[in-house]
């Protein structure tokens, strides 16, 4: 039984009943795809086609097709990798950490956020895999498999290998967590299905779920433990990603502040992406009663907190560079802010530190249009943050004769578009064929947290 304080705002508005939840969510799956959906899918396929051409050029000709040079050996690809992984973090934060904290407002947004996590992690994984140049040999380079080079194993002292384990574990555990929640909801669609195909498909997807109390009781303890496992997991993933940089000896990368700073940045950008996606989904699917202004405001508050943590991290880094007394370190930071990439640094500062502070105004954080715009601004800023960290730290080597600039090529941009195309395509398929809101969880709070219309 739930006890909810009277001052809490309703999580589900307009007096929805348990049956209404079923109808509102299932009918989106059952109805014919709308014109808007078809147009969006076509757009996503267009992006995928352009991207596929760039990928073909990359795989056929090699990594030289990217704008990398011998000084800047990592640029767009790793920027995109870190950006996408970071975006993924919000899904797990919502479903696992908010579950441990018993935050019931997670219930109507966790399904879509977890889907976003899974697709974002796939997008992220693309970049290191393509960066291998010959990804078909990647199994031997990245996994501890016996190979033809004698018994030479992968290097467990390298953060790049830790990343392989972290990302693959994160992906598979998130997938399992997401699917576990989907099983009871697939059963709802199965029992409403009228045609043979969807009966068979959703029947198989729902694993023969019958809603027995014994199964629910086990399901709840599995969900709780998975949340307990996923919480340190999600924090470890971006920590390990940050170690790709922090364990090196490059000025600008060699900082102990990286792990917490990267994790905060990840949650920051992830929540922004959740907002971008959900504001559109809620409008198109008319889910205003489930994803309310209250939900949007709460997410915006998390954005202010994590955005401010990121801002403090930027300033701390600068201070420590000065305080360390190491000329190379000090130069790296001065060059970041005033060198040839000053515009990237300025964009990062504006988008990540200054603009989210607008959410201190209640009017702005409860307004859909301003939230939507700012959520996109945050993700642009977070992309620039990774670009600044990676490229500005590399482009001015210890040896001034090897100083260089990085210029992206069509293939750099094309592979990035490919990841976008994939993300959009996968999310659209999810939104059409899967229940976008966790029906079982929302039904369980209808009695305690639903707005009573006339009682």
């Amino acid at each position, binding site marked *: *039984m*739930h006890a909810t304080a009277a001052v809490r705002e309703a999580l589900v508005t307009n007096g929805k009943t*348990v*049956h209404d939840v*079923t109808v509102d969510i299932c009918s989106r799956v059952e109805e014919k795809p709308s014109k808007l959906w078809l147009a969006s899918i076509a757009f996503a396929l267009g992006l995928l086609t352009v991207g596929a051409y760039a990928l073909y050029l990359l795989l056929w000709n090699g990594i030289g097709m990217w704008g990398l040079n011998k000084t800047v050996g990592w640029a767009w690809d790793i920027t995109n990798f870190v950006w996408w992984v970071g975006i993924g973090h919000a899904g797990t934060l919502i479903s696992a950490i908010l579950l441990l904290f018993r935050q019931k407002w997670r219930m109507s947004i966790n399904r879509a956020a977890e889907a976003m996590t899974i697709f974002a992690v796939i997008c992220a994984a693309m970049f290191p895999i393509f960066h291998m140049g010959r990804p078909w040999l990647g199994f031997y380079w990245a996994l*501890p498999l016996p190979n033809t080079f004698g*018994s030479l*194993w*992968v*290097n*467990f*002292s390298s*953060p790049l290998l*830790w990343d392989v*384990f*972290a990302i693959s*574990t994160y992906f*598979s*555990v998130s997938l*399992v*967590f997401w699917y*576990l929640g989907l099983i*009871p909801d697939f*059963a*709802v669609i*199965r*029992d*409403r299905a009228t045609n043979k195909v969807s009966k068979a498909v959703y029947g*198989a*997807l*729902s*694993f*023969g*779920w*019958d*809603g*027995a*109390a*014994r*199964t*629910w*009781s*086990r*399901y709840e*303890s*599995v969900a709780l*433990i*998975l949340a307990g*496992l*996923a919480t*340190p*997991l999600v924090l*470890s993933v971006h920590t390990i990603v940050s*170690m790709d940089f922090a364990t090196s000896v490059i000025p600008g990368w060699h900082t102990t502040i990286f792990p917490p700073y990267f994790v905060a940045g990840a949650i920051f950008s992830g929540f922004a992406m959740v907002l971008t996606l959900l504001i559109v989904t809620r409008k198109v699917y008319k889910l205003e009663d489930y994803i309310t202004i209250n939900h949007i405001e709460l997410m915006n508050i998390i954005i202010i907190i994590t955005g401010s943590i990121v801002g403090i991290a930027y300033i701390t880094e600068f201070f420590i560079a000065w305080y360390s007394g190491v000329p190379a370190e000090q130069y790296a930071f001065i060059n970041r802010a005033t060198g040839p990439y000053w515009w990237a640094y300025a964009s990062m500062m504006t988008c990540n530190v200054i603009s989210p502070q607008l959410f201190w105004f209640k009017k702005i954080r409860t307004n859909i249009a301003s939230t939507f715009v700012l959520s996109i601004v945050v993700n642009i800023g977070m992309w620039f943050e990774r670009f600044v960290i990676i490229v500005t730290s590399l482009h001015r080597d210890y040896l001034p004769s090897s100083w260089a600039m990085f210029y992206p090529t069509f293939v750099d941009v094309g592979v990035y578009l490919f990841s976008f195309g994939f993300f959009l395509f996968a999310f659209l398929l999810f939104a059409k064929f899967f229940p976008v809101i966790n*029906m*079982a*969880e929302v*039904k*369980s709070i209808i*009695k305690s947290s639903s707005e009573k219309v006339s009682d």
Partner: protein
Amino acid sequence: MASGKNFVLGIYDDEDVLLEAIKKIRGAGVKIQEVYSPFPVHGIDDVLGYKRSRLPIAAFLFGLTGTCLALTMQIGMMTVDWPMIVGGKDFLPLPAFIPVTFEMTVLLSAFGMVGTFLVASNLKPWGKPNLLDIRITDDKHVVAVDLDANHVSEADIKKVLKESGAQEVNNKTRG
């Protein structure tokens, strides 16, 4: 699962009424086969007298297996089979093994526990649910009483169910 064929079903649409009803039904000496719900009802395991799930133990044991496997793999490869100094670390760089060990612990624990859950609850892609009422996955809670497992007469069971607040009381034969 259910061995019986003839059931009396009490159908409820409010979880709090359901919880009270279960107490009354069990108090009247009627054995409940199982309760089916569209969503998890808190406190239902207590009123039904179900023991706490032992799945956390399974999760711990799978996790422990993951830890041991990861350490064995890393020490076997980096220390025993091909010792090599990387980045000035010694042949047994335990701190550097922490991330992979942690990830494999989580991986095996999560997969092992979910696998155990699916097997224990008889959930599988080819599984056919034998739903006693189609509205279970929508908005109704169903208390199923197996007539063959009860000594109380059918009429008395129905009376208890009705009095406990059931909206409908139906007979159901499971094929």
